[in-house]
């Protein structure tokens, strides 16, 4: 795979992000905009936040480097993709800021090269891999996934990457390895949020081995056809569409195989609120709010949340498990 520099590509070749916005939503937005004038509540923005910023967003926060040779994936949803502007300006990335619009500004100078990922624990050969070597392990696929945050909002993102299993197969975990743990970089100099003990840094997440090997589990290094923006977890992250967003660790520097269930950061912070599994489940409420519905960014009405976020193919991973207990 080739990652071209932005200068190699004529700007006319790049699909404007505005085209990702679907037409129906635009019309709905326009219709309600009329009403908005009467109600004085700015409903246009409520319904379709990005309608009037269609242009003017080409510069901004893009990582800019287009990824070549992206293949389509049968795992992709056909649902409307959330506008790029929203996905890159509404981030839960506490390493930078606890404000949703903070990471977009504070991550701009974050260094994503050179970048090594340490592979250790129960593997045949402990090693450090360069992120660019990992990215070349398999052809890049576009996976358009639903992404449901534990807070009750959701987005649809065209991620770019390949199945996490491609990496795991190549590093040969031993038969004792039952879990895999992911660690985000710890660098308070670059990540101002880490200078405050809001969470127990560095951020750690974990999966059971069979979850990690499931083809839906994505090792991700791009979105919207480009390299990942820094505020979305560059240079490399995981994406687990059937789990709440916080399980999808960003800016990974370590992958450790283990025989014990790893602790994950949010579970350490509030064990009764965030479990190890954290599968999207409309029937198990967060202790402080309901998980039955979600607000898709850009939509006015809430929609029902689906079991496993609609990814029923993972259900067999959990047969016989009490998902209320193992939340």
């Amino acid at each position, binding site marked *: 795979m080739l990652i071209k520099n932005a200068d190699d590509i004529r700007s006319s070749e790049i699909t404007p992000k505005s085209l990702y916005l679907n037409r129906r939503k635009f019309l709905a937005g326009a219709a309600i905009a009329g009403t908005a004038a009467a109600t004085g509540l700015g409903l246009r923005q409520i319904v379709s936040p990005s309608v009037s910023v269609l242009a003017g967003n080409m510069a901004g926060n893009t990582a800019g480097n287009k990824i070549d040779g992206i293949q389509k994936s049968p795992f992709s949803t056909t649902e409307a993709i959330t506008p790029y502007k929203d996905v890159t300006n509404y981030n839960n990335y506490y390493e930078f800021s606890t404000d949703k619009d903070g990471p977009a500004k504070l991550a701009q100078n974050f260094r994503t090269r050179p970048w090594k990922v340490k592979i250790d624990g129960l593997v045949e050969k402990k090693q450090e891999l360069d992120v660019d070597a990992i990215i070349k392990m398999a052809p890049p696929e576009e996976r358009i996934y639903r992404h449901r945050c534990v807070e009750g909002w959701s987005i649809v993102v065209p991620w770019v990457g390949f199945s996490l299993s491609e990496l795991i197969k190549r590093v040969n975990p031993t038969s004792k390895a039952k879990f895999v743990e992911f660690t985000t970089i710890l660098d308070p100099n670059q990540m101002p949020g880490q200078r405050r003990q809001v969470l127990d840094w560095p951020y750690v997440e974990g999966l059971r081995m069979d979850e990690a090997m499931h083809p839906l589990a994505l090792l991700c290094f791009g979105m919207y056809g480009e390299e990942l923006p820094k505020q979305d977890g560059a240079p490399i992250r995981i994406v687990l569409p059937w789990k709440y967003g916080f399980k999808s660790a960003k800016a990974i520097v370590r992958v450790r195989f283990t025989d014990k269930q790893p602790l994950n950061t949010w579970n350490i912070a509030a064990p009764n609120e965030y479990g190890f599994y954290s599968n999207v489940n409309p029937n198990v409420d967060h202790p402080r709010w309901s998980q039955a519905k979600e*607000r898709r960014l850009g939509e006015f009405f809430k929609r029902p949340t689906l079991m496993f976020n609609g990814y029923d193919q993972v259900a067999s991973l959990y047969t016989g498990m009490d998902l209320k207990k193992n939340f």
Partner: protein
Amino acid sequence: MPRWLKPVVFLACLAPLAWLVWRGFHAQLGANPIETITHSTGDCTLTFLLITLSVTPLRRISRQYWLIGLRRMFGLFAFFYGTLHLMTYVWLDKFFDVHEMLADIAKRRFITAGMTAYFLMIPLALTSTKWSIRKLGGKRWQALHRLIYFSATAGVIHYIWLVKADLKKPLEYAAVLAVLIVYRMIGWLVSRAAPSKATSAKATPLSS
């Protein structure tokens, strides 16, 4: 108080709403506009509750006793923004689903606290007129309006119980509220310790 001051302060109190509406029409409310509206009206409610509670200490410390003339307006603006905040929840979050809201109030402690804070403000808004003060009598009116301490406390607790991990902002409100309450408590203890001064304290009640 100069005559022009009240209308100017009135307009200033509307500025946060105007800013919100302006941003709404210019697509500046971010990716999740309903959340932005919810959070900013909530912030305004707490801020105006704390401003209302600051009037008495401020006028005593600065000896600008005319400030009392603005207090009702601040209190009513707290109620106004609180109503907008509640409406955002009732309309844009729950879409008037009474069943769901009742379940929320019973099950979610941060909603319970928020509702408590709001409902405690209602009698205060209703009895904010001069007529009510005359009708109730100054003392009873004043006793009733001490509910604002409970409303503000419930409001701050509502915020603390809502956040996931970063308590910084709710604790800032809590700190200001604590200072304002401690100020009253000290005044109350002092007036109890020196009963001879209690009569003069009555003339300008500490908690007014």
